[in-house]
């Protein structure tokens, strides 16, 4: 039991990393990785939304929609996620105005982060139970936060590098993300 939970967690964090292997959630990954602090905050906010979102989505799917109303799945997931994001936004604006400004448009855009919608849908697809869903959501968000923070730390360093002018900014970030993805390929096969 415990081992299977651990495997879900390790699997989603490393082996099937949501960003570098599943290539989901690239928008905030590219957008909020210029500064380490902002990326940590973004990671935390996304982790919160993802975990709560996975749990509630499971509940809605299981008890509200059932098999009859399956066509409402995507729609209702989006509504729930939007609600959670809105809530998070209010909390952050109250507690840290600078962070609110720094995260800027990317905070409400968590709603459209495909990872956030993707994970609940993957949960349904994999027929995960409630705990598994929560873990899957949490693991996915930890994986997201982890690579976001690592990526931000690399980008902060690269800021001072003598990168060819045409590659500065998003271009070299894309290349770096690609190389990180390459590195994460090394985890392939670790957990089947």
């Amino acid at each position, binding site marked *: 039991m415990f081992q299977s939970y651990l495997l879900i967690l390790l699997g989603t964090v490393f082996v099937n990393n949501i960003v570098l292997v599943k290539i989901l959630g690239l928008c905030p990954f590219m957008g909020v990785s210029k*500064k380490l602090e902002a990326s940590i905050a973004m990671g935390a906010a996304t982790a919160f939304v993802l975990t709560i979102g996975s749990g509630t989505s499971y509940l809605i799917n299981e008890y509200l929609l059932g098999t009859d109303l399956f066509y409402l799945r995507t729609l209702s997931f989006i509504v729930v996620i939007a609600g959670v994001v809105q*809530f998070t936004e*209010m909390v952050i*604006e109250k507690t840290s105005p*600078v962070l609110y*400004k720094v995260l*800027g448009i990317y905070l409400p855009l968590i709603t459209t982060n495909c990872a956030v919608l993707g994970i609940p849908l993957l949960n349904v697809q994999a027929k995960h139970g409630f705990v598994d869903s929560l873990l899957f959501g949490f693991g996915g968000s930890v994986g997201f936060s982890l690579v976001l923070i690592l990526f931000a730390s690399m980008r902060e360093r690269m800021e001072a590098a003598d990168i060819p002018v045409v590659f500065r900014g998003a271009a070299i970030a894309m290349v770096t993300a690609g190389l990180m993805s390459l590195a994460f390929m090394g985890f392939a096969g670790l957990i089947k």
Partner: protein
Amino acid sequence: MTAALFVMIGLGLFLGLVLGFAALKFKVEGDPLVDQIDAILPQTQCGQCGYPGCKPYATAIAAGDADINQCPPGGEAGVKMLADLLGVEPKPLNAEHGVPKPKSVAVIDENICIGCTLCIQACPVDAILGAAKQMHTVITAECTGCELCVAPCPVDCITMEPLKEDIPHWKWRYPVIPIQVQVAA
């Protein structure tokens, strides 16, 4: 069909309630961001940005009414700091608002000054000493170099003089690097 309708309406109502509660609970008053922006601005109070002072400009930036590149005295470095604070891309200074100049201070030619006090009224930081019909003097240490006193002077006795570099204020220069062949952006 009705079930679907009820489900969606129910969801909407529930989320509306939660968010409404949150909106009351986490209500934000004031904007602490203004002070943080104001701390970066050079406080020349020169008005080149199009606002009557640094604080109003800071307020405008925080509200999203003004761009971050309207402050020539702050220079590119100031724009970069603002960009860092606000998490946006730095951009070059907007030439419409003037170009950065070497730091200068106002100097009153005391032989010409007629003591009209117009410059005293113009000075945003009270850095000019004097009274009516008396010669005026600029307190160099407190002059921000805003040039606001130059225009009102009826006898054109105020000039802006760049600060001369002396030993206590001297700076080491950036080392010249022979290989730095910068490709034009």
